[in-house]
C-alpha cells in the first residue's frame, strides 16, 4: 500500500525496451541502483516500470547500448501537473476553498458558557465581549489567559474560569464561589412568622415563651433569647428583687411546630367548552434566513389547531438562520356540562392544586374545609378551601441588648 502511494507521489513510467541482449540493460540499471519492477517479455522486447527519478538515467544507459527505449505510460503526481496546467480554474477553486476554510475557521463564531448557576450568562458574555471575546472575533486578537484573569477580577462571584477554544467555538467554563450562609451570632429570639396554634415546642437554647395549645399571632416571641437568672435558694424571695441581677442573653434555638391554616381558591365553569385534539396532524417546515423565508413543506390548514414549533438555529457569518418545523394538531370544541357536585369537586381539586403550588409541597392535605362562594345561579362556581397543616413557624430574629435593657 505504502509502496503504491510512493509510486504515485514520485511518479512512475511504464517503459518498452527493444533490442538485443536486453538483460544487459537490466543488469546495468540494477548496478546503478535504478529500481525496476513488473518486467514482462513482449513479442519484440520487454516492458517494465521505472520511477520517474530513474527514467533519465535509464535513457542514457539504453542510448549507450544502442537500445530503443519508449515510454508508453506515465502515472503519478509529477505528470498530473500538466493536467492541472490545463485546468487552472479547478486549481484556483481548490486553493480558494482551502483558503476560505482557513480564513473562516480563524474566527470565533460561537460562545458557550457552562457551569454558571447564580451569575447570569448574559453578564458573563457582556464581560467577555468587553474583554474582546465575542462572536466574529479573530482567534489571535485576544489572549485567553488574559481574558480569564480579567473575568476573574471583574466578576467577584466566580472562583475559576477557563476559556477553551475548539475550532470556531469558545467555551467559557465557570466555577462559582460557594458563599457561606450568614449565621446570626448575636442574641436572638425565635418569633412566629404566621398565626397558628402551638402544637409542639422543642427548645435547644433559650427560654420557651409559649406552651402547646397557645394561640400565637405573627411576630410573637416563641422562644426567648433572654434568660432569667436562676433564683438562688440561699437568698430569700423578698430579698431577691433588691439584688440587681442581670438577665443573660443567648441566641435562642429550637423548633416550634404549630397548626396553621392556608386558604386556596378554585373555580369551575358549570358549562365548559374544551378544546380536544382530533388526532389529525400536519407538518410544515421552512428555513428562516435574515432576508427571506424559504418554505420546504406546506401544511394543510385547520380551522383550529394547536401548533408545536421546533426551531434549530445556526449562526452563520451572514446572520442567524433557523430551520423551523411546525406541527399543527387539529382541535375541535367539546361542550361539557357539570352537575353542582361535580363542579364543586373540580373547583376543590383546582384550589388544592393551587395551594400545593403555593406551598411548594407534594404531600396531600389530609383535612380541608370547602366553602362555596358563588350563588347557585352563577355560571361559574367558586370555592375557597382551607387546609390545616402543622409546620415550623419559628424564625430567628436578632435583638439589640440595649432594647432589652430599656424594658
Amino acid at each position, binding site marked *: 500500500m505504502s509502496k503504491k502511494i510512493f509510486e504515485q507521489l514520485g511518479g512512475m513510467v511504464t517503459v518498452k525496451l527493444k533490442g538485443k541482449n536486453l*538483460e544487459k540493460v537490466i543488469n546495468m540499471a*540494477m548496478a546503478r*541502483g535504478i529500481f*525496476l*519492477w*513488473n*518486467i*514482462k*517479455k513482449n513479442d519484440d522486447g520487454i516492458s*517494465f516500470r521505472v520511477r520517474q527519478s530513474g527514467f533519465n538515467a535509464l535513457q542514457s544507459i539504453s542510448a549507450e547500448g544502442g537500445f530503443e527505449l519508449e515510454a508508453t505510460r506515465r502515472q503519478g503526481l509529477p505528470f498530473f501537473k500538466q493536467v492541472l496546467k490545463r485546468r487552472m480554474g479547478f486549481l484556483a477553486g481548490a486553493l480558494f476553498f482551502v483558503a476560505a476554510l482557513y480564513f473562516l475557521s480563524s474566527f470565533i463564531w460561537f460562545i458557550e458558557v457552562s457551569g454558571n448557576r447564580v451569575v447570569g450568562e448574559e453578564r458573563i458574555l457582556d464581560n467577555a465581549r468587553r474583554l474582546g471575546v465575542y462572536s466574529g472575533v479573530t482567534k489571535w486578537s485576544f489572549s485567553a489567559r488574559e481574558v480569564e484573569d480579567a473575568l476573574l477580577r471583574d466578576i467577584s462571584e466566580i472562583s475559576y474560569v477557563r476559556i477553551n477554544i475548539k475550532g470556531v467555538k469558545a467555551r467559557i467554563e465557570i466555577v462559582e464561589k460557594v458563599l457561606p450562609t450568614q449565621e446570626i451570632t448575636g442574641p436572638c429570639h425565635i418569633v412566629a412568622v404566621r398565626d397558628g396554634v402551638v402544637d409542639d415546642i422543642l427548645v435547644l437554647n433559650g427560654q420557651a415563651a409559649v406552651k402547646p395549645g397557645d394561640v400565637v399571632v405573627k411576630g410573637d416571641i416563641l422562644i426567648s433569647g433572654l434568660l432569667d437568672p436562676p433564683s438562688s435558694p440561699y437568698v430569700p424571695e423578698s430579698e431577691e428583687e433588691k439584688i440587681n441581677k442581670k438577665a443573660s442573653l443567648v441566641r435562642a434555638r429550637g423548633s416550634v411546630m404549630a397548626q396553621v391554616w392556608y386558604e386556596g381558591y378554585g373555580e369551575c365553569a358549570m358549562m365548559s367548552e374544551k378544546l380536544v385534539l382530533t388526532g389529525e396532524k400536519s407538518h410544515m417546515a421552512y428555513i428562516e434566513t435574515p432576508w427571506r423565508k424559504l418554505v420546504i413543506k406546506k401544511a394543510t390548514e385547520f380551522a383550529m389547531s394547536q401548533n408545536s414549533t421546533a426551531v434549530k438555529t445556526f449562526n452563520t457569518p451572514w446572520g442567524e438562520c433557523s430551520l423551523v418545523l411546525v406541527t399543527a394538531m387539529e382541535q375541535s370544541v367539546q361542550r361539557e356540562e357539570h352537575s353542582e357536585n361535580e363542579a364543586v369537586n373540580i373547583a376543590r381539586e383546582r384550589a388544592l392544586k393551587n395551594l400545593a403550588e403555593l406551598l411548594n409541597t407534594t404531600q396531600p392535605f389530609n383535612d380541608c374545609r370547602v366553602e362555596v362562594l358563588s350563588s347557585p345561579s352563577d355560571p361559574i362556581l367558586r370555592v375557597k378551601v382551607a387546609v390545616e397543616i402543622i409546620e415550623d413557624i419559628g424564625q430567628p430574629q436578632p435583638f439589640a441588648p440595649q432594647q432589652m435593657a430599656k424594658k
Partner: protein
Amino acid sequence: MSKRREAISRAVADLLEIPKDLALDLPRVTLVGKGELYIENHRGIIEYSSERLRINLNRGYIEIEGRDLEISVLMPDELVIVGEVRSLRYLD
C-alpha cells in the same frame, strides 16, 4: 573466493551457527507454490524470456524454466519472479 577460504568460512559459520547465506554469500531461494519465487543474493540476470530465466549467482547460476515468467521486483540483491515455475536447476 578460493576453495580454501571458503572451507574456513564454512567451518567458522558451522562453529558459530551463523546462517550460511550471510557468512558465505550463498543465494537464498524461496519458492511459494509454483507461482512465486524469491531469490536473495543474486548477481544479475543472464538471460530472460518468458519461458526461461537464468540468474547469475556468486558461484554458477540458477536456471528457471516455466511459463509466463515475469520479474515483478528487481533490486540489487533481491528479485521476485512470478509465473508458473516448472523447474529449477543449479548449474556451475
